[in-house]
């Protein structure tokens, strides 16, 4: 068995003294693991870092074997990202979400989104919004997508400001008003036709929203915990926005 594909590295695990088990998200073969012989060498280690885009050749005698990878670098993103706390936490969060998918199950849309996201992980003001959109896409690919296109109660597409925790569907301002305490706020950047960027409150609302549905549909049934990196990402984003607010205050003064 042999195939060639492009992939983004999600993580590596030491194997023996010289090899590594590589976990990649590929375009056509989904999340895939394979052994890289000599993967712990000085030459290979910089290539086999999470976030790097590589050209992969996978070989195995039988399809069900783990097989071996040969990885050639296409884009070495890791060195660009490791200085930023937001970028590394986001990268680990994305990888943790992708680990929820079954192995070798192709998700081309997630791969493309992941590639775009990694290109923008250095832009701190965009990361929160991008990660939330990615989380909603992962939920959708797992079969638990939210429907934020129209009001669950009235069918209107205007003024969608809430999300029902029960159905995962959007609710308009007027229909949701009596139950506002029980509904999630739909952050403005996730509303239909939204053009404005996300502020910290909108990001926190969005994280709360996706957390709830991840916990209900994925973490609780599988008995797993929320990835630590996600908490770290939120904390790093709070620090970033706080620093930004101080610098804006200084400029205004």
């Amino acid at each position: 068995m042999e195939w060639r594909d492009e992939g983004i590295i999600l993580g590596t695990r030491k194997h023996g003294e010289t090899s590594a088990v590589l976990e990649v998200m590929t375009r056509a073969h989904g999340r895939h693991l394979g052994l890289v012989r000599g993967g712990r060498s000085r030459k290979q280690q910089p290539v086999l870092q999470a976030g790097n885009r590589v050209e992969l050749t996978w070989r195995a005698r039988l399809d069900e074997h783990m097989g071996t990878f040969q990885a050639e670098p296409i884009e070495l993103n890791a060195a660009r990202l490791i200085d930023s706390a937001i970028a590394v936490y986001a990268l680990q969060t994305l990888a943790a979400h992708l680990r929820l998918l079954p192995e070798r199950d192709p998700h081309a849309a997630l791969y493309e989104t992941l590639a775009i996201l990694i290109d923008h992980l250095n832009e701190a003001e965009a990361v929160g919004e991008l990660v939330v959109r990615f989380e909603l896409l992962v939920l959708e690919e797992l079969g638990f997508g939210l429907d934020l296109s129209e009001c669950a109660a009235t069918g209107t597409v205007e003024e969608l400001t809430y999300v029902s925790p029960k159905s995962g569907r959007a609710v308009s301002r007027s229909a949701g008003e009596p139950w506002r305490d029980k509904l999630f706020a739909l952050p403005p950047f996730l509303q239909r036709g939204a053009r404005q960027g996300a502020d910290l409150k909108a990001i926190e609302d969005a994280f709360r929203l996706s957390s709830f549905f991840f916990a209900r549909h994925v973490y609780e049934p599988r008995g797993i915990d929320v990835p630590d990196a996600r908490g770290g990402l939120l904390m790093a984003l709070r620090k970033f926005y706080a620093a930004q607010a101080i610098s804006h205050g200084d400029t205004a003064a």
Partner: protein
Amino acid sequence: MSKRIAGPEIERLIQLLAKVPGLGPRSARRAALHLIKKKEQLLAPLAAAMGEAVDKVRVCSTCGNVDTSDPCMICTDPRRDPTTIIVVEDVSDLWALERAGAMNARFHVLGGTLSPLDGIGPDQLTIKQLVTRIAEGGVSEVILAVNATVEGQTTAHYLTDQLSGFDIKVTRLAHGVPVGGELDYLDEGTLSAALKSRTVF
């Protein structure tokens, strides 16, 4: 089934030696034969040294280093600067920095890095012990000497968050061109990191 060429004691010695890093079954066989040939000069002292190590080696409850005393020699050395702690992933990193002899500071061994793929979270590392050490006071700088890998740097960022409440300086090792490194052979990531952290010459 292959024929046995030696008694079970020798076979067991070979099997155990083959588990040592750097040795495979073939080299373990050679090493075992060499030890047996030099029974009095090498095998007996080695066995005695190993027995003594088994009895005496322990992990330092302060820094996580391995030594025959607890606290270890590094932690009890009065000539070391107690205000600086170098945080390393593993004891091998501590030994590497000690070989370099560049700083006369104290250490803290984390016992690995945060690695979701290996199921290693903050509770599996000695992060709480480090925070307790800092909270006890007397430390002014923590140097994060973790590997320049994504896992290593995630751990470094996590540690920085954990230590943000203390009035201490948190620094990390520089990333860039190694001594003897030729630019032509370096990966793009290292080159861009080196350019980003360039210094006035």
